[in-house]
């Protein structure tokens, strides 16, 4: 279902057809559409433009009144020191984000398989409680979660974040995989069952090999949301510098008390955004699929 949605979004209509008969009014509307699109483009791109432009003006060359003006020459002076501050937190982020994404993807694929191919009594209700999980605000479980972490002995380690993001990732991963598996014909599974394969065997030998694109979608989705998360990060680590991750380290740099180093602020914001931006640029199609799956239905 979701892949179908994506192709709907990305497949442009056949525009050659429109070209044939553009009368005066038609041309006016085309120009009007382009002008509007360009204005929206400028608005959408402005914040990232400011970030990029001001990150190459060096540490002292940045002033707020010249924010929109491109640099006279490229000066990467702010990059070195900023990277030095950020590299450890960013490495730590990568570590926990990868772990939590992979674990929740695996659990999600098993759950998704069960929900799509195995109708048991009460499965709709259980699935609905799962779905509601996507909407539960972090706030509703944060406080007991810290106490649980202490009890489980992972308090003060990065595993608090792995655990939190696995739990929060499961509903969306389950949903994405369920929709994905729904497209696999039941006859395939029936045939395997007739041949004597159990559910586990079917899952391992038939479903998993077909799931690669599903895994890409889920991993990207989890990667982006866990990387960008701030609330869990600051709350569960208590803001401890020993456990700083990308967003909390960045907030420490740009937080209102440290506003003097404008160049560093912009550079740090950009550096922290680069991994997710790269993922978006190269795997945007999968990212979009994750986004649309989160919407349940078109």
């Amino acid at each position: 279902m979701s892949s179908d949605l994506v192709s709907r979004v990305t497949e442009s209509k056949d525009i050659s057809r429109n070209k044939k008969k553009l009368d005066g009014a038609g041309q006016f509307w085309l120009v009007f559409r382009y002008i509007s699109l360009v204005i929206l483009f400028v608005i959408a791109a402005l914040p990232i433009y400011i970030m990029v432009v001001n990150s190459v003006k060096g540490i002292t060359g940045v002033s707020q009144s010249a924010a929109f003006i491109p640099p006279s020459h490229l000066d990467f002076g702010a990059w070195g020191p900023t990277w030095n501050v950020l590299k450890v937190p960013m490495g730590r982020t990568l570590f926990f984000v990868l772990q939590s994404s992979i674990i929740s993807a695996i659990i999600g694929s098993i759950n998704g398989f069960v929900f799509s191919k195995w109708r048991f009594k009460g499965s709709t209700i259980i699935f609905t409680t799962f779905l509601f999980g996507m909407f539960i605000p972090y706030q509703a479980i944060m406080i007991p979660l810290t106490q649980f972490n202490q009890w489980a002995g992972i308090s003060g380690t990065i595993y608090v974040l792995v655990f939190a993001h696995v739990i929060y990732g499961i509903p969306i991963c389950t949903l994405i995989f369920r929709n994905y598996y729904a497209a696999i014909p039941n006859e395939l599974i029936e045939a395997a069952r007739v041949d004597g394969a159990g559910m586990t065997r079917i899952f391992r030998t038939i479903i998993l090999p077909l799931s690669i694109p599903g895994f890409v979608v889920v991993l990207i989705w989890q990667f982006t949301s866990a990387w960008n998360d701030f609330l869990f990060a600051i709350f569960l680590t208590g803001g401890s510098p020993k456990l700083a991750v990308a967003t909390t380290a960045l907030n420490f740099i740009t937080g209102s008390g440290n506003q003097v180093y404008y160049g560093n602020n912009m550079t740090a914001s950009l550096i922290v955004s680069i991994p997710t931006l790269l993922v978006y640029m190269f795997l945007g199609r999968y990212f979009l699929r994750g986004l649309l799956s989160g919407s349940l239905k078109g």
Partner: protein
Amino acid sequence: MAIFVYGMIGWTLKISLSHLNSAWSTDNSFAGISNYTGLLQDTEFTHAFTNLLKFTVVFLIGTLLSGLIMSLLLEKGIKGEGFFRSTYLYPMAISFIAMGTSWRWLMDSAQDNRATGLNMILRNFHLGFLQNNWYTSESGSMYAMALPAIWQMSGYVMALFLAGFRGIPDDLREAARVDGASEFKIYRYILFPQLSPTFLTVLIILGHISMKVFDLIYGIASKSYVTKVLAIYMWQVIFDFQNYAKGSAIAMIILIIIAAVVIPYLRYVNKSEEANK
């Protein structure tokens, strides 16, 4: 796992009904709903709640409109569509702690000769009278705060509407055109009614995001009073005052508001899915 999360919610509920009102308190005996009734009399809470409502209204309408406009501009297909689409959608991939840095500059409150950011742009377009204090202004702070939120989510709404538009068979349009309907009428009477499930989905998604909004506001204005919403207030109550019972009560209120809207929606989705089978 599901049991775990719901168990956690139960735990939060229990704390919210207890006496754990300070860092030193170990008294987790039952306090009834005193934490909730206390909140109703707490002016900071009502302030945060009103702020959140203001924010939600502007954010919902703004994002819906701009996402819809984007999709209307693109839905018939146009050269360079992929390029525009990707730029409109990229804000979803970036953390608000990072984007907040840019937005703080754009929404700088300095005016006239010292104006920077948006105020400077307005002046350059001879719209100087529109300059304002943005998110630091007393009355308009929440409306200003909705701008970056709209900026971030519009592309998402666009994608949802594009998927909706393109799911409508072309024949419908063609038939109406042959019958002599104007373009406006085609949208008004044929296309928009088909999109009502998409409208509903968009409203639910944006609404629940709005209720728990935190990163965006914290990234731009930290804990500033004029932009305080429930999530920020909860944060303060827990971190700065260590009042776990009160913080849990706020969390439960956020959850209840979301549940009141989302659960009926999920039931509706389930029903229509069953009906399609």
